[in-house]
């Protein structure tokens, strides 16, 4: 009887597992279709783009006209459209912004969580209130400030406003409160450890999962940011990839293959980075989920 019910449980478990696998496979296929379509489109001529949803049909292996696939879009992307320069611009903007924003937000969050100073409560409330302000609302006043500071058309004009987002400061304040025991900090201070050293030797390692998650989020947000570079920058040579890809769009006639190749070139680097950091990212996002 017991053995029978164990067998039934095991069978039910296997069926459940199988159902899960099927569900995951179906979901994966659904998610993968647009990416496969994008990859196919970036290797097709414009005529084939309109005729075939994926690869052009023909006499080749698997019924595909392999000889009609072309690398021309990538060639013109790098030779004529200057995607190499835009890629470098995006890398500089995203990585520098991500590193600086992470350090500044972690320091700000630590200060609000652990240091006693006059007005701490007020500053915390202001930071919390600032979280709810939608960023597009700040474009016009931000533009005026940058204009007065003479920072328009410079990377500083893009990086400086992005290195202390209220959301990040608040996130690290919460991470410090939940992950850094007050006794630990007091012990460090008793051992004559200064605040800067305590931050880097004690706090920063303890909020590391949040560091990784925030780093990746900021990197991706800056990489995909279209509006701010479009507004702040003027010189075409300074434009990041997101803006350059948008500029590939013509007024009436569209070079679809070039657009798709540009899109592919813009998602590959961040895709690789995400694969590198995905465990840290997930850990960071879930670190506050279970308090242990």
């Amino acid at each position, binding site marked *: 009887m017991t053995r029978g019910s164990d067998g039934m449980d095991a069978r039910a478990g296997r069926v459940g597992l199988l159902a899960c696998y099927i569900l995951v496979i179906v979901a994966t296929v659904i998610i993968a279709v647009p990416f496969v379509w994008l990859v196919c489109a970036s290797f097709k001529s414009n005529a084939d783009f309109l005729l075939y949803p994926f690869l052009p049909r023909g006499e080749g292996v698997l019924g595909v006209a392999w000889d009609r696939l072309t690398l021309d879009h990538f060639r013109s992307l790098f030779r004529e459209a200057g995607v190499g320069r835009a890629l470098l611009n995006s890398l500089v903007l995203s990585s520098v912004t991500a590193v600086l924003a992470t350090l500044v937000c972690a320091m700000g969050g630590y200060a609000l969580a652990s240091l006693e100073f006059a007005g701490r409560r007020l500053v915390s409330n202001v930071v919390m209130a600032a979280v709810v302000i939608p960023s597009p609302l700040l474009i016009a006043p931000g533009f005026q400030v940058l204009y007065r500071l003479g920072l328009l058309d410079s990377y500083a004009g893009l990086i400086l406003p992005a290195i202390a987002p209220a959301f990040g400061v608040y996130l690290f304040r919460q991470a410090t409160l939940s992950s850094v025991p007050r006794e630990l900090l007091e012990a460090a201070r008793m051992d004559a450890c200064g605040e800067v050293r305590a931050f880097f030797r004690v706090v920063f390692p303890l909020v590391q999962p949040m560091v990784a998650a925030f780093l990746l989020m900021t990197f991706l947000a800056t990489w995909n940011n279209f509006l701010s570079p479009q507004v702040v920058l003027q010189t075409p040579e300074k434009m990041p990839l997101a*803006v350059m890809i948008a500029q590939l769009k013509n007024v009436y006639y569209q070079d679809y293959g070039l657009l798709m190749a540009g899109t592919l070139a813009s998602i590959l680097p961040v895709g690789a980075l995400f694969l590198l950091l995905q465990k840290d990212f997930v850990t960071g996002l879930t670190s506050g989920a279970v308090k242990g």
Partner: protein
Amino acid sequence: MRPTAGGDAMRDGGGGRAGRLGSDGRRRPAWLGFAAICAIAVVSSVMMLARREAPPAGASMWLFARLHRDIYVPAVEDWNRTREPTVRMSLLGVQAMEQRTLSSFLSGTRSAELMEVERRIAARAFAGPVESVGFLDLTDRLREEGLLEAINASSFTPWTSRGRIFGLPHDVHPVMLGYRADIVEAAGIDVSTIETWDDFVRTLRPLMYDAGGAKRTDRYLLNLWETHQDVLEMLLLQAGGGIIDERGLPMLDAPVNARVLARAVSWGHGPDRIAADAPYFSAAGNRLLLDGYVLASFVPDWMCNIWRKEIPELGGKVKLMPLPAWEKGGRRTSAWGGTMLGISRDAPNPEECWAFAKHLYLSPELSRRLYTEGDIITPVKAFWSDPVFDEPDAYFGGQARGRAYINLAPQTPPRYNSPFSALALDRLRSAATQLAAYADAHPPATPESLEPEAARLLKAMQADIMRHVRRNRFFAEDAPPDDGVQP
């Protein structure tokens, strides 16, 4: 500092704090991600510093059309060999160009010395006082050098604000009707007998039905829908109406506009429907043209180039005819689109930029290339006698396409421009869609039954735009007083 509690925490930080066990049981360094992005920041910054080049010398020119840039390359290279300052072209998207141009005009950021802009960008640049428009005022130069007479007159109107001209026109953009000659000629119909829209409907209506004679609609006569706002504006212009008058004020409530709008909407929603939607600039619309779902489409000169590239299968099957007039003896064309070359008011070398603009736009070689590679007719009247315009075009059934457009060029209507153009165009579409809904709800929707409602809608839209006009102190002086019509 002795590594006490903090150091311990780092060493045994489990739970994903300082380091985690990897699948092989070894700890993965906690700082790997941070270090990776730091490395990217350092390496990419060093690469960027190493690639930093001195600011390019010479004047910069922004363009939005890749085709134009490709056509200009020889002329620019020629200029750069012998003249100063050298000019370098930069291709920008229309949106990017609009934002950068306006941002530079309004906030003083750097712009290009030369800007080839589309109609809607110029319209937005005319928002302030006329003496503060960001483009250099070319009126006196054009007059003194006789260019006002040398260039097709209506081509100046989109670049004119309050009597001043801010750009050198690039084109004329007359509009013809592109029709499926294979179907029409197979039915033995001679389109040269068509003079008015009434003739058009009467002559071609038999082609809407199948050969068996059953009253099932196989195709429609005209590619027109109430959401095609550019086409609607073009039809208003043809009839002598429009959305903006020569003072830069909206004129949606002109009686002729109501007449045309009622007629156009009745074509799509009336008892004798002849129009259908084959969206312009889309793969779906191209497919419908190819399938013969619509017999005729509106084709400005530049559209020939798009058809040639995007629907090569139509080659030899289509021909062009002048637009049917709204009444006998009326205008047989209209205008759609437009581009100019403007010079920034803050350009350090305006005279050299002006010389370059003339070198580019007034060159006979460039005019020929503009036609042979871009299908665009030059606005310089002296070049219209070039035999290249008489060459037969195999795509359009061997017609002398260039000559056909040039014959119509002097008839192109003026199309005025102002900061309210975009708003007026939007409200025109709004009126058209509301009128279409009214037509569906009140059958049979004949032009006569729709005209009063069209007039009412356009008057309301006009009142709405006038509220915006009265808030603009630079245009409010010319605006008529509020007549109390509620938008």
